[in-house]
């Protein structure tokens, strides 16, 4: 029995009017950019990422023209180096990863029957950061200042300021900024999948796309932070001359390679799995049946995610590491082929069991599978170390990675484009143009990249701007160049198809007759996302649940109204999607865009060595973030509960581990702890590299006393916060405030004590890698103490302002999560720098 009388047409229309008003986008030339609705932010995101893909594609065409004939001089070596560096960096950081995030921002709420993702403003912030950072990095080539050290940026070529210019800083700082936005998106997507599913959608009913997104977002959390740690060390060396990678002062260039590839290999799967996720959505649609082997897909996704973190050294097979170390990675690199094979056969078996309906998306999926299988098999080849010693850093690897990325990322995205275009615009793309484009891309890709297997084995190394005629590689290279232009022609046909879309007729709703939730979307899309949030009983509710679409449309499920004029969605439990609460979502705001600009300022101004301006920009960022949190989070609702229909009443405020905010903090701190572990790895890595570490002459610093004092006060601030949370929950607000004050004092003392060790013992970070890494760990940890002090002060202010009460204590609970991680950081840092030299 519903609370609402949905048979009443007038009531339904009134509800729709209210929903429409609540979800109305901001209008006007400027105001429209303050929008945060996932549909619009997602579309901006997709278009921007697509634009970067076209840009990087043009860079590749210039390279192919240069290499079309031997001894060519179309572009000079310097330009060529910028071209391949930007091509790789843009495709990876500005196309593949953001594209997956963009598509997910559009699709995920639809797949989960949610009105929006839990943190719409965070998505908007991520988008603006991406746009600013992306334009900054790619624009540099027009000023002949683009990075030119390769997308892997190996020091010392890139850290020596006499050998590399501003480009290296642009790469490092511009892309660090984008990495931050990637991590932000990962947080958003994980919380979205775990906490914003519709009632009844237990883990075993989740659309497979959501499984993949969950897995990939978790991978981002563990893969990007080591690179961020590497970026920190890298810029410390470039800007401050701290010798982490300078062998003459105790550094080691290989430290960078480890940190880069711990990121770099999972990255490959981060861009591959979402594309397979698109297959997992469209294959059942065109096989006209449920996907066979749902648990196998989960096995494959989770298994690949884990194994992908045990592959990184296969990019370092030729670095002369002991063969036994290489062999572990060779073995894991072979093992990762197993879950990949499982996925491919799950799709094949589903097509076998079902009735195949040919369509343009399925054509793309088939073609990409063919290309991907070839790339996967050459991947198994290069995982065999002796073969890799020949193939490594040659065009064979160029062929391999392009087969994998074209078959595993680019063409699946085109399959997704043709599949989901009706969902986003309400119109289908042209089948004729789509098929033409497909054949051009398919033939072009093989023509371009197949010959590279041979040119690589015949001795053509990567990243060469020219090659001598007597090598006899002219024919193979010319074929590759022709192939690259055929691919470009195919992409141009797709662009043409997209451009003609606005003049086409609307397609019927659910034009592919699919069974999953996202196809509830109506061609004349409303901004509210979904009319009412359904109860899910099947993996393919549109196929299996009786009268499903009508019931959703008539608001017969949950939350069909917006009585209080607020944007809302339902939060459910992680395993079984039991409704937990209703949360209010952030609406249009200037804060995300302003914060992105301010944070971008920090990175960009630092690139040009305007340190004071960067500091000001940093303070501004902090102020904006605080304003954002203060006005937009942990709001005490006007009433404790609200009904969502069918006799269910849900609280409007939750805190602790049922709340999205708590999860967001937890997940963010996982990423933070991973970055920290990258720095700690650096410390112990240097220990393995040196017979005496710390070096005898520097063994005095930082001593034992100060690190132990810093450990004590750091743990004191943690205990004070934990105590404050517990006492606060019991209603003793005054005592809790005193404890928070103590926590602030202890955190500030932690800053002093942490820096006093290296400072008072006179450690010179420019002298050797040992003082440099000790300083870095101390600075990282004390900076976290500083953030702790700010957070605790914020909590105190919330309490004093009456925005935090014993019943509404999300603020202090979330800060407590931060403090748990702080305690871990403090313990590891000070035990390492204080006590390890005693034993080493």
């Amino acid at each position, binding site marked *: 029995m519903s609370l609402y009388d949905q048979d009443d047409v007038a009531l339904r229309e009134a509800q729709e009017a209210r929903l429409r008003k609540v979800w109305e986008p901001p209008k006007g030339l400027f105001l429209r950019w303050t929008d945060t609705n996932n549909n619009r932010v997602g579309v901006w995101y997709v278009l921007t990422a697509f634009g970067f893909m076209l840009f990087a594609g043009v860079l590749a065409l210039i390279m192919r023209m240069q290499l079309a004939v031997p001894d060519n001089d179309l572009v000079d070596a310097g330009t060529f180096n910028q071209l391949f560096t930007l091509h790789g960096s843009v495709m990876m950081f500005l196309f593949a990863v953001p594209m997956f995030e963009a598509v997910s921002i559009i699709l995920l709420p639809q797949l989960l029957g949610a009105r929006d993702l839990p943190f719409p403003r965070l998505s908007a912030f991520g988008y603006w950061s991406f746009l600013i950072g992306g334009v900054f990095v790619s624009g540099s080539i027009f000023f002949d200042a683009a990075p030119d050290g390769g997308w892997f940026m190996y020091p010392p070529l890139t850290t020596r300021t006499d050998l590399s210019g501003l480009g290296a800083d642009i790469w490092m700082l511009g892309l660090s900024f984008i990495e931050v936005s990637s991590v932000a998106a990962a947080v958003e997507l994980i919380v979205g999948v775990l906490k914003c599913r519709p009632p009844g959608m237990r883990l075993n009913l989740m659309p497979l796309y959501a499984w993949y997104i969950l897995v990939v977002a978790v991978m981002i959390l563990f893969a990007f932070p080591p690179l961020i740690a590497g970026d920190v060390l890298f810029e410390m060396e470039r800007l401050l001359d701290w010798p982490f990678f300078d062998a003459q002062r105790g550094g080691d260039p290989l430290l960078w390679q480890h940190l880069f590839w711990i990121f770099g290999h999972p990255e490959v799967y981060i861009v591959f799995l979402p594309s397979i996720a698109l297959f997992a959505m469209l294959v059942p649609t065109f096989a006209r049946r449920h996907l066979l082997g749902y648990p196998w897909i989960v096995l494959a996704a989770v298994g690949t995610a884990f194994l992908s973190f045990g592959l990184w050294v296969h990019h370092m097979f030729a670095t002369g590491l002991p063969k036994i170390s290489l062999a572990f990675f060779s073995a894991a690199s072979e093992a990762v082929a197993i879950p990949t094979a499982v996925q491919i056969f799950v799709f094949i078996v589903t097509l076998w*069991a079902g009735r195949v309906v040919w369509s343009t998306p399925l054509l793309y999926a088939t073609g990409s599978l063919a290309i991907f299988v070839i790339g996967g098999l050459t991947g198994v080849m290069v995982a065999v170390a002796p073969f890799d*010693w020949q193939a490594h850093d040659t065009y064979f690897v160029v062929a391999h990675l392009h087969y994998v990325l074209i078959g595993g990322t680019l063409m699946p995205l085109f399959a997704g484009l043709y599949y989901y275009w009706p969902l986003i615009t309400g119109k289908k793309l042209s089948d004729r143009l789509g098929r033409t484009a497909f054949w051009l891309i398919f033939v072009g890709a093989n023509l371009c990249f197949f010959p590279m297997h041979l040119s690589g084995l015949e001795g053509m190394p990567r990243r060469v*701007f020219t090659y001598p005629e007597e090598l006899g590689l002219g024919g193979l290279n010319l074929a590759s160049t022709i192939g690259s232009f055929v691919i470009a022609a195919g992409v141009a046909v797709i662009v043409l198809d997209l451009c003609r879309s606005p003049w086409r007729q609307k397609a019927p709703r659910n034009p592919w007759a699919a069974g999953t939730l996202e196809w509830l979307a109506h061609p004349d899309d409303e901004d509210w996302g979904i009319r009412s949030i359904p109860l899910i009983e099947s993996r393919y509710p549109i196929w299996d649940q009786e009268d499903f679409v009508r019931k959703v449309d008539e608001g017969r499920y949950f939350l069909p109204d917006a009585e209080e004029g607020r944007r809302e969605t339902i939060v459910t439990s992680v395993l079984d999607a039991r409704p937990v609460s209703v949360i209010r979502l952030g609406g249009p705001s200037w804060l995300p865009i302003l914060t992105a600009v301010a944070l971008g300022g920090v990175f960009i101004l630092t690139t040009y060595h305007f340190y004071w301006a960067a500091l000001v920009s940093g303070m501004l960022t902090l102020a904006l973030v605080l304003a954002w949190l203060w006005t937009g989070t942990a709001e005490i609702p006007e009433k404790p509960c609200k009904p969502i229909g069918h006799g269910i009443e849900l609280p409007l405020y939750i805190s602790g581990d049922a709340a999205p905010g708590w999860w967001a903090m937890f997940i963010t701190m996982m990423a933070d702890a991973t970055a920290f572990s990258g720095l700690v790895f650096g410390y112990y890595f240097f220990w393995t590299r040196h017979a005496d570490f710390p070096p005898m002459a520097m063994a005095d610093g930082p001593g034992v006393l100060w690190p132990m004092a810093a450990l004590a006060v750091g743990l004191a601030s943690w205990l004070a916060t934990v105590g404050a949370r517990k006492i606060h929950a019991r209603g003793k607000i005054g005592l809790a405030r005193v404890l928070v004050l103590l926590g602030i004092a202890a955190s500030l003392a932690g800053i002093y004590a942490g820096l006093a060790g290296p400072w008072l013992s006179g450690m010179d970070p420019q002298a050797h890698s040992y003082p440099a890494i000790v300083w870095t760990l101390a600075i990282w940890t004390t900076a976290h103490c500083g953030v702790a002090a700010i957070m605790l002060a914020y909590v105190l202010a919330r309490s004093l302002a009456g925005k935090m009460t014993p019943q509404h204590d999300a603020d202090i609970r979330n800060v407590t999560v931060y403090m748990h991680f702080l305690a871990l950081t403090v313990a590891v840092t000070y035990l390492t720098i204080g006590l390890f030299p005693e034993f080493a």
Partner: protein
Amino acid sequence: MRKSIIVGALLLAGCNSHQSALAPFGLEARSTLTMTTVLVIGAVVIALGVALVFVLAVRAPEGRLDHAGGMRMVLWLGAIVPTVVLTALLVWALPAMRPLPDAVQNLRVHVEGEQFWWRVRYKPQGQPPLISANEVRIPVGRTVVFELTATDVIHSFWIPGLAGKMDMIPGRTNRLVVKADKAGTYRGICAEFCGLSHALMAFDVIAMEPAAFDAWLAASREPPMRTEGRGAALFEASGCNACHSLNGGEGIGPDLTRFGERRTLGAGILPPTVANTAAFIRDPHKSKPGARMPAYAAMPEADALAIARWLKEHGR
């Protein structure tokens, strides 16, 4: 269309026999080529197999395969068969990672990568080292150990016909143990991106019969024949000797003691003609962007030619 391209490509593959992993002249490269052949055959068979299964899947009528049958197929084709194949591959390939056995009496050749050339030091057992540049000579049939280092940036030492590549990393010494089995003249290159002229950093590899190698080594220890004249005076007056040694000593730039014997100029990129050499002296960055050598643009062409001519004669 694809087929014809592959056939065409295979025809082209025969063209290059001096810088190709497909034209081995050493034990390591030869066994890797065998491995490559096996891997390629395996990959082709698997790719065709998957394609066949895919075609069958698309053509099968609805319901031909039931749930249990499908799951069996995923288990066998997706999980068990790949696991067995990969296990066999590992058991076969892991032992091949072991380097060739080494012994103290083996010839050691220290090669140091620099932007953008190669410093070569032969270190025969019990003899003083012999210094050279941009050319590596090795005896056929004897084990040779390359000791690979770098000081400026990372390079990678790759002689495709001899063995796989090995990086040269500042602060580390990497070892590559090889054994050539076919005399001839080959080419090696830098395989790790190292800056502007990465593409222009190569070297000549000459695999010699052991007797000829020993004779060459002994002859190289003779003091080079000295000729005096305008070229010699200009070489000194222009300060060339500040970087380039002419008597087997260490210098900032490549050793030029036996420049006249070299097969190439500028680290494997130009024929060592007098005209090329003179042009290189006056503007090294034209053919070698980013090279450390300063341009002698103000030097009259006649002087440059004189130096070049003298260098060609020197040490011959």
